[in-house]
């Protein structure tokens, strides 16, 4: 690991030096001139030319074979990509996911789920309308498909191949590639819908700072009032859904459509960004999934049925609860507190 890191520092420093010292075009002509000058003093010494070829950006290289970058004799950037992908991304990325799972597991076993303090009244409030839920679950299902297939593609060789054997794992990886490539654009579309649907209630308010300062009462158990979404959910919305969603979508599109004849170096860079962003996205999503299912009593039902109990609303989103009760607004734009029986019809709400 140390050796790889050291190689990396050296490579990065060299790259920086090259970039800073020669603008691209100037480098091409100067190396040709250097070669000509070298022939005068040392005939037969072609070192400047070979150095140029190794760097992979000589403009006077041609070939009769058609295709993308066929005239490039050597592209050393691939080695850089290999070291990054097989090194830090796989090793640190993999352990990061494992570590977050362990932390969440430990938190759950120590603190258990957040339960309601008062008895539920049975009076239900509409928190997520049909559109909200449809958008959420479309994004959620496509995200999980992409996460699982992405894990198979990056880590499967290390964790699944030894168990499944070559033939079965290859079949699984082929399926993963197809699912990843076809679901990817669906997720990108869902990301846009998610943003448009939930941006209004995710704008940062003054009381969100207070929520952050108290860590949402996660460790103390203290009650921290919040609007329709608390600051933690807002952080997930802006950093996860929006920022990382856009990053993985844009980089994913570059990788998904090689028919636009983009070069290898661009795809290597996009792959590195895609992998890092996706791993961070997955670790954040673990937190969101935990809070939405095991972590908070009643949270899953709110997105499953669209309705929450009055007590739940008061204890988790007090400002939102007051607004709904005052009749200003509710989830999905409707403002009426609903009765218990309408929970069954929540699907149609």
């Amino acid at each position, binding site marked *: 690991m140390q050796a790889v890191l050291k190689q990396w520092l050296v490579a990065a420093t060299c790259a920086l030096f090259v970039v800073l010292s020669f603008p691209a075009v100037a480098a091409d002509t100067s190396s*040709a001139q250097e*070669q*000509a000058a070298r*022939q005068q003093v040392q*005939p*037969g010494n*072609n070192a400047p*030319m*070979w150095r140029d*070829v*190794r760097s992979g950006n*000589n403009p*006077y*290289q*041609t*070939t*009769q*074979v058609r*295709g993308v*970058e*066929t*005239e*490039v*004799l*050597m*592209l*050393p950037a*691939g*080695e850089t*990509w*290999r070291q990054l*992908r*097989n090194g830090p991304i796989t090793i640190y990325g993999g352990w990061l996911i494992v570590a977050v799972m362990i932390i969440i597991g430990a938190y759950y076993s120590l603190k258990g789920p957040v339960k309601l303090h008062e008895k539920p009244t049975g009076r239900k409030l509409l928190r997520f309308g049909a559109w909200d839920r449809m958008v959420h679950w479309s994004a959620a299902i496509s995200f999980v498909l992409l996460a699982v297939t992405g894990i198979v*593609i*990056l880590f*499967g*060789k290390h964790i699944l*191949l030894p168990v499944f*054997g*070559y*033939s*079965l*794992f*290859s079949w699984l*990886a*082929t399926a*993963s*590639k197809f699912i990843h*490539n076809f679901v990817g654009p669906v997720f990108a579309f869902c990301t846009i819908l998610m943003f448009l649907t939930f941006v209004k209630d995710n704008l940062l308010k003054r009381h969100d700072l207070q929520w952050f300062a108290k860590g949402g009462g996660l460790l103390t158990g203290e009650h921290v009032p919040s609007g329709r979404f608390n600051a933690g959910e807002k952080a997930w919305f802006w950093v996860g859904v929006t920022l990382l969603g856009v990053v993985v979508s844009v980089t994913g599109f570059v990788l*998904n*459509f*090689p*028919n*636009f004849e983009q070069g*290898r170096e661009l*795809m*290597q860079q996009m*792959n590195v960004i895609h992998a890092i962003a996706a791993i961070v996205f997955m670790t954040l999503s673990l937190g969101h999934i935990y809070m939405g299912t095991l972590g908070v009593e009643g949270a899953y039902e709110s997105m499953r049925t669209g309705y929450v109990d009055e007590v739940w609303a008061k204890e988790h989103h007090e400002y939102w609860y007051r607004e709904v009760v005052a009749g200003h607004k509710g989830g999905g734009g409707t403002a009426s507190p609903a009765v218990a029986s309408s929970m069954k019809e929540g699907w149609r709400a």
Partner: protein
Amino acid sequence: MARMKFLCDAERCIECNGCVTACKQEHEVPWGVNRRRVVTLNDGLPGEKSISVACMHCSDAPCMAVCPVDCFYKTSEGVVLHDKDLCIGCGYCFYACPFGAPQFPQDGAFGMRGKMDKCTFCAGGPEVDHSAAEFQKYGRNRLSEGKLPACAEMCSTKALLGGDGDVVADIYRNRVLKRGKGAEVWGWGTAYGKPEKAPTPPAGAKS
């Protein structure tokens, strides 16, 4: 056992593309796939040189290292081969390879990649030697017949040498001594500069 290597003598290559043609004809490779290509350096400038390049069968092959399904294997002769039945067509070997060797026939819409194809050093693949399946997927298996790669055998100026690395290096050394110039063994540092990875049995055989 011999360690197979390619060497292209830039002082001799005349850019006739005979090796490219020989390869295509020997293995009946599909349209759009080029296992070997000739690149001309400083085209039209003084000191123009040409190099024939294909998979170099690297000591520490990057394709092998990044493959998500581990479909590559290395023969006891140092030839890097892959199992097309396992390949998923992700293109990672193509990102990693410094020589641009891995090729992908388009398979489906949006440039979706089919199974990777590359130079086999005329050594076929994991299928039974000389079987129809082997020829269809990987081309001719000349090595098992005691022959060297078709491209190198066909080379009219003997610029492209392919075979036992020690013999190839000896031939080249004698040339350099006689002509007194052109000692650059192109691509050998990248391909064979790292410690040799041990041969591995075909991937499928391990499961």
